[in-house]
């Protein structure tokens, strides 16, 4: 008894499978380009900095003599710039959280749904795309010169605040918008005022999203060079900044300064600086991911 294959008339599948495999291969290749580039970069930086990165590098001021940076040398490093960057980011965080969350709450919860409001919102989104050098020039004109802050830590922090404020506002607005209306209604339903609804229900639910957006923006700000270059971060600071209106150094500027020195050894010092900067940056991102993972409440 011979059986005929009921699927005999289906003949186009081999060709389609091949197309499918080619497509997957292309997608994997696209992914690999990004990953390989990143890994190469990291490997190169770590390789360059090998032997130059020591505990002294974190605790000593920079030096003109490359041999001071080597273990057993007189000790030299990134200390003033590391502390300067941390102060800069802490101040920027303080300013951005209040201004950014305040603006987002107003726009999302209070502002009437008018053409003016949408115009403002559209422009905030546009501001997020303005090149950072423009903010640097603005900071130089407004804070350094007009407000007479000089080339100070405060002027630098305020400039970075302007730079990331639009991003923080947009992120905070998205976090507020993601709070389900059913949560707001629940609070209104038991006789809460608008302020109580925002304080007790909306903000706590939106906070993880707001924090995540803010930290990610700050980790962008900590690596920015152009704005603080314009505002006048110092490259030859040998002490940590000690006042808001005093001069300051920052890691990106310091790395830039090392990289342009003629002696070849300074390329290794710059690489060591990059490793420190990237470590701080990755640590901040890790905190952001942790907050999102840990506190994002699964609302009904």
């Amino acid at each position, binding site marked *: 008894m011979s059986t005929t294959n009921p699927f005999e008339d289906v003949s186009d599948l081999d060709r389609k499978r091949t197309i499918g495999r080619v497509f997957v291969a292309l997608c994997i290749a696209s992914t690999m380009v990004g990953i390989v580039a990143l890994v190469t970069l990291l490997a190169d930086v770590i390789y360059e900095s090998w032997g130059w990165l020591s505990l002294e590098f974190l605790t000593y001021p920079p030096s003109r003599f490359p041999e001071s940076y080597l273990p057993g040398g007189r000790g030299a490093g990134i200390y003033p710039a590391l502390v300067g960057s941390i102060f800069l980011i802490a101040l920027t965080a303080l300013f951005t959280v209040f201004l950014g969350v305040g603006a987002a709450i107003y726009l999302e919860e209070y502002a009437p*749904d008018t053409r003016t409001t949408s115009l403002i919102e559209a422009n905030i989104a546009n501001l997020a795309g303005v090149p950072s050098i423009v903010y640097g020039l603005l900071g130089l004109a407004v804070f350094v010169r007009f407000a007479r802050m000089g080339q100070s830590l405060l002027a630098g922090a305020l400039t970075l605040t302007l730079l990331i404020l639009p991003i923080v506002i947009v992120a905070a607005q998205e976090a507020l918008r993601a709070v*389900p209306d*059913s*949560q*707001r*209604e*629940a*609070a*209104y*339903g*038991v*006789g*809460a*005022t608008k302020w*109580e609804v925002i304080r*007790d*229900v909306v903000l*706590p*639910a939106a906070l993880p999203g707001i924090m995540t957006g803010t930290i990610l923006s700050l980790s962008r700000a900590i690596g920015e060079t152009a704005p603080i270059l314009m505002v006048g971060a110092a490259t030859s600071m040998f002490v940590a900044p000690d006042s808001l209106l005093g001069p300051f150094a920052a890691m990106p500027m310091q790395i830039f300064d090392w990289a342009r020195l003629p002696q070849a050894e300074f390329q290794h010092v710059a690489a060591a600086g990059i490793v420190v900067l990237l470590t701080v940056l990755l640590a901040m991102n890790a905190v952001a991911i942790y907050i999102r993972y840990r506190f994002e*409440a*699964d*609302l*009904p």
Partner: protein
Amino acid sequence: MSDTGPAIETSIEAETDTARGDSGGVDQQTAETVLSARDLEVFYGDERALKPVNAEITEKKVTAIIGPSGCGKSTFLRSINRMNDMIDVCRVTGELRFKGKNVYDEDVDPVALRRKVGMVFQKPNPFPKSIYDNVAYGLKIQGKDGDRDAQVEEALRRAALWDEVKAKLDASGLDLSGGQQQRLCIARAIAPDPEVILMDEPASALDPVATAQIEDLIEELSRDYTVVIVTHNMQQAARISDRTMVFLTGGELAAFDDTQAIFENPKSQRVEDYITGKFG
């Protein structure tokens, strides 16, 4: 209320008149009107969601609102505690009186109104807080003094949830099952002791067992509270309510009578068609 034999009306106006006239009867003390709508209309932009509604809702009874989808039953419910205020394009005309006071008067604060008229929503919406804090929230913001623990326990008992949660008051409200969450929301609504409880299809997201628990609870609650409940389930309305409002497409209140009369002897063909399942 269910045996008012002679109260046979042919129109809503006549029905409303009789309800007022009823107050001369035996039920006087127990059947006071707590909510009354006078030519209440609701518009969303240019669209009319509710044709003029005239209705009297009696104290400490369960009033069910039924009707096909989009007939305005939720709109009517939300106009009672002014939840519609939150929608920018929503406009209300006419009067909705709570104990004689028009809640749409200039001098009425909707927050004050919502303290007297609590609400339970379609989907259980506990806060991502502990069970205790969920129930205590209304008490806290309304500044209700007294033994907070006792007030929370009382509300949970009334919501028939106490025995299930008394050992884990610190657990998140979100860890409860759907039916428990909805009873938690009921406890949250009744904790500050409102006079009216509005329920917007409170059992529609629940399984049959949880639904039955909620239905039993509603009957219990009507001893102390006036309950107005929107449901799309006609059997539910028939089981739990004393009075039934039937809205039909276009936002028209087509009938409002004792539940028994609505289901056994509907006055109009359209209402009968809806109730017998010919549409909707």
